[in-house]
C-alpha cells in the first residue's frame, strides 16, 4: 500500500493541478531538447520534486520511471568510508548529499565525476546527457558548493545538474548564476482544498469542505503535509467530522516543551537537560534551522519588546555561525545559554524594581 502522497502524485507536467502556466513553459523548455542546469527552489511541499520528475519524464519518456535504490560508497581523503542512498534510473541519479554532513564535498565531486565521465553509448533517440539531481542544496556546506561550481562547468557536455533547494539565500551566487532558477511558490489554500477534495473523491470518500480548509491551514500551505494529514485523519476517524482532531507533528510540541523548560529555570544543569532534548530533535532528523526558528518563536512569547530584539539578534548571530560550523548542537546550545543569561538578568532587575 502506498501513501496517498505517492499514489496521487502527478506523473507528468500536463497533469499538474496548479501553476499551470509555469508548467506549460517547462514543457516548452524541455521540448527544445536541451536546457541549462536548473535550480528549482520554493518552500517545502510546493511540488518541486514532482515538477523535476515531470521534466525528466518529458525528456526521456517512461524509461525514467523505472527507479532503483542503490547505496553508493565513497571514501574521503582521510580514508573514512561513506555510504549514501541514491535513487536512480537509466537516465538520472538523485542524491541528497547533505545526508553525509560535512563530507558532502566528496560525494558531490565523486558522484558527478562518475556519472558524467561516461558518455551515452547510443546517442540516437537518446539525449546526450544524463541528469544529476541534488536535493537539499541549501544544506550543502560551502566547500561542497565550491566544488559543485567547478564540476558543473567541467562536465557540461555530458550531464545536466538539477538542484533542488528551499531558498536560494544559502546557495552561492556563483552557482545561482550558472543555473536557470525556477521558483515554485507554495499552493494557495483553496488550491490545496481542491486537491484534497479530489483525492477523497478518487478514494471514494466524502470530506467536509470545512475540514479540508482546516487541514490546508494547519499544513502551512505544504501540500505534502496536507495530504499526509488527510490520510492520518482518515485512519484515525472516518467518516470525517468537521471538528475532528488533526494530527500535528510531534516535534513542534516537543520544541514548545523545551522552551518551557528554558523559561522555568536558568542554570547549567538545566542547560544540560535542554541539550539532551536538542540532541533528541537532531537525531530525529529535524533540521536545525527549524529547531532554531521553533525555539525562538516560543521563547520570545515570554519576553517584552526590548528583550525581543535582543534575543532575535542573538538567534540570528548563532544561526549564522551554525551554517559556518559543522556541529549544530554547539550553536543551538550557545543560543539557549545566552537566552538563559539574558532572561535571568532581566528577571532579576525587574524583581528588584518591583521590590
Amino acid at each position, binding site marked *: 500500500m502506498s*501513501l496517498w502522497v505517492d499514489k496521487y502524485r502527478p506523473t507528468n507536467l500536463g497533469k499538474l493541478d496548479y501553476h499551470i502556466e509555469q508548467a506549460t513553459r517547462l514543457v516548452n523548455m524541455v521540448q527544445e531538447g536541451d536546457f541549462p542546469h536548473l535550480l528549482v527552489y520554493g518552500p517545502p511541499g510546493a511540488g518541486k520534486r514532482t515538477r523535476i520528475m515531470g521534466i525528466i519524464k518529458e525528456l526521456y519518456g517512461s524509461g525514467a520511471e523505472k527507479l532503483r535504490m542503490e547505496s553508493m560508497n565513497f571514501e574521503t581523503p582521510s580514508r573514512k568510508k561513506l555510504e549514501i542512498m541514491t535513487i536512480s534510473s537509466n537516465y538520472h541519479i538523485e542524491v541528497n548529499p547533505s545526508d553525509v554532513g560535512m563530507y558532502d564535498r566528496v560525494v558531490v565531486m565523486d558522484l558527478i565525476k562518475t556519472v558524467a565521465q561516461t558518455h551515452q553509448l547510443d546517442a540516437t533517440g537518446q539525449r546526450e546527457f544524463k541528469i544529476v539531481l541534488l*536535493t537539499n542544496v541549501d544544506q550543502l556546506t560551502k566547500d561542497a558548493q565550491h566544488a559543485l561550481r567547478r564540476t558543473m562547468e567541467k562536465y557540461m557536455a555530458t550531464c545536466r545538474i538539477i538542484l533542488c533547494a528551499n531558498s536560494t539565500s544559502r546557495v552561492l551566487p556563483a552557482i545561482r548564476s550558472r543555473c536557470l532558477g525556477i521558483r515554485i511558490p507554495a499552493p494557495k489554500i483553496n488550491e490545496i482544498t481542491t486537491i484534497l477534495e479530489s483525492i477523497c473523491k478518487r478514494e471514494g470518500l466524502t470530506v467536509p469542505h470545512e475540514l479540508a480548509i482546516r487541514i490546508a491551514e494547519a499544513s502551512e500551505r505544504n501540500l505534502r503535509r496536507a495530504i499526509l494529514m488527510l490520510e492520518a485523519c482518515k485512519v484515525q476517524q472516518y467518516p470525517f467530522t468537521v471538528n475532528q482532531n488533526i494530527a500535528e507533528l510531534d*516535534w513542534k510540541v516537543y520544541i514548545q516543551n523545551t522552551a518551557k523548560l528554558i523559561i522555568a529555570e536558568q542554570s547549567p544543569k538545566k542547560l544540560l537537560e535542554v541539550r539532551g532534548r536538542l540532541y533528541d530533535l537532531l*537525531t530525529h532528523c529535524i533540521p536545525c534551522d527549524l529547531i532554531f526558528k521553533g525555539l525562538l518563536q516560543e521563547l520570545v512569547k515570554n519576553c517584552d519588546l526590548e528583550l525581543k530584539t535582543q534575543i532575535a539578534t542573538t538567534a540570528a548571530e548563532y544561526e549564522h555561525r551554525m551554517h559556518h560550523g559543522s*556541529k549544530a548542537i554547539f*550553536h543551538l546550545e550557545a543560543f539557549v545559554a545566552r537566552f*538563559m*543569561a539574558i532572561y535571568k538578568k532581566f528577571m532579576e532587575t525587574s524583581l528588584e524594581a518591583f521590590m
Partner: protein
Amino acid sequence: MSGSKNLQKNKGSRMSWSFDCDVSERDVVTPAKRPKIETEVPSLDRVSRTIDIYDKKTHINSLPALLKACEPQEASELSISRQKQREIYDWLEYKTIKSKPCALILSGPSGCGKTVSFKLLAKEKEFECVEWITPADQGADENNRFTRQGDKFQDFMVRTTRYGSLFEDCCRRLLLVKDFPNVYFNDKDAFHTLLEQYFGTGKEPVVFICTDSGGMGALQTLFPPNVREKFGICHISINPVTQAVTKNILKRVSLVFNTRASHMVHVSQHIVEEILSNNIGDIRSTVINLIFASLKVPNRQIDCEGRGRGESLSLLHAIGRVTNPKRLVEGNSWKFVHDPDEIAYFFQTQPSTFARFLHENHLNTTRGIEEATAATDILSISDCLISDWRDSHLGRLGLSFCIRGIMITNNDPVPGWNPVRKPRNDEKICRDLASTETLWYKSLISPKLALTITFKGLGN
C-alpha cells in the same frame, strides 16, 4: 694492540658493506678523545679485560660512552632471567654443530635485552657474532653497478662464514640478524627460499632477533609456525624486564654513573624511584630516561613529572585538566598549572574530537549560567574555526582558543566526581525534513509499515 683491533674490526665484525655504520662510530667516539671501546668485537678475553681495567680509571665524557659503560659485563648482570640464559647456553652448547647450519629465533618486546644478553652469552661461549646491518646508502660499487639489498643479504647469509678469518683461530662464529632487509617483508617467499639455501650450504649458526610488535612483527610475517617447523628453528621468547630486575640494574647503573661520570650526571634515589614507577619493561628506554633525568643542567630547575617513553596525555586527563582548571596564584598574578597551549599541542591532530568532548563535559563543572554562556559562545566560535578546512592552522587555533576560553571562563569550578562522558554521535543526522515528515505520518497511518523503518516519535 689498538692496531690489531682495528684490523679485526674491519675484517671481522663489521663487514665492508656496513660502511655507514663505521662512519657514525667514528663520529661518536672520536670527540671523546679516547681509544675505541669495542667490547662486543674482541672475543679474546684478555683484550676486553684490558679495556675494562682501563675504563674504570677514566671518567666518561660523552653520552654514548656512558651508555656503553652501563652495558652488562657478566651473566649475572643481565636483564633476562636465569632460565632463559640457561636456554640460550644450551642452544649454544648442544644445538650448534660445527660446520652445520642451524638457526635460533630470539623474540621479545623492544628493550628487554635480547641483543645485549645474547652477545654476552655468545662471547662467554667463545663465539664471535657477525651482525648484519642493512646498508642505508645504496651506493654504486666501483663498476658503477648497484647491488640489490636482497643480494647483499644473501651474500651475507651464505658466504660470510665460508672462509675462516685470518686473525681468529680459536673461536667459532655465528651470524646475527636483527635488522631484516625491507624487501623480505613484501616478498616472504624470497626469504623462505633464502632460508632453504642457507640450510643447504650454510656453515655457521644464525640467530634472528625479532621484536614483538603486536602481531605484525618479523616473527609472525617471516617465520610462521610451518616455516619454523620445516627448518627446525628453535625459538626462545623473552619476557619484558620485571620490576625487581629493573631495580637491580638501575642500582648497578647508578653506581657506575655516580662514580665515573659524576661531573655529568647525578643519580639520586628520588629519580630512580620515579623512573621505576614509569617502567614498562623496557630497560633501554629506562636507562636512557635515567640519564636524562639526572643530567646536571646548570641553573635550571628540572621538573620531574611524567617521564616515560614518549610522554602522552590521554584524552580523559586532558579533558579533566580543561574542565577543572587549577590556578597558581603568585602575588597579584596567576597562571594555570597546566599550560593550555601544551594541552592543545597534544590534540592538534584531532581538534574537532577534542572540542566535542569538551562540549559534552564542560557544563558539569560550570557554576553559573553566565559562565556557561561565555563558554558555549567560545565553543560556538571555535567550531566555526575548526570546521574551516581551507587553512589547516585554523584547526589548531580553534582548539587552542576553545581550551583557553573554557579554562578562563570557569574561574570557580564545581568540585565533584564527574566521569568524562563520550559525546553523542550526531554525524549520522539526515537532514531531509520531507522524508522525516513522511515517515512520521506513515507511523500514524500504518503503524506496521513504519515499525520496519524504526522511527520512534519524540516522547514529551
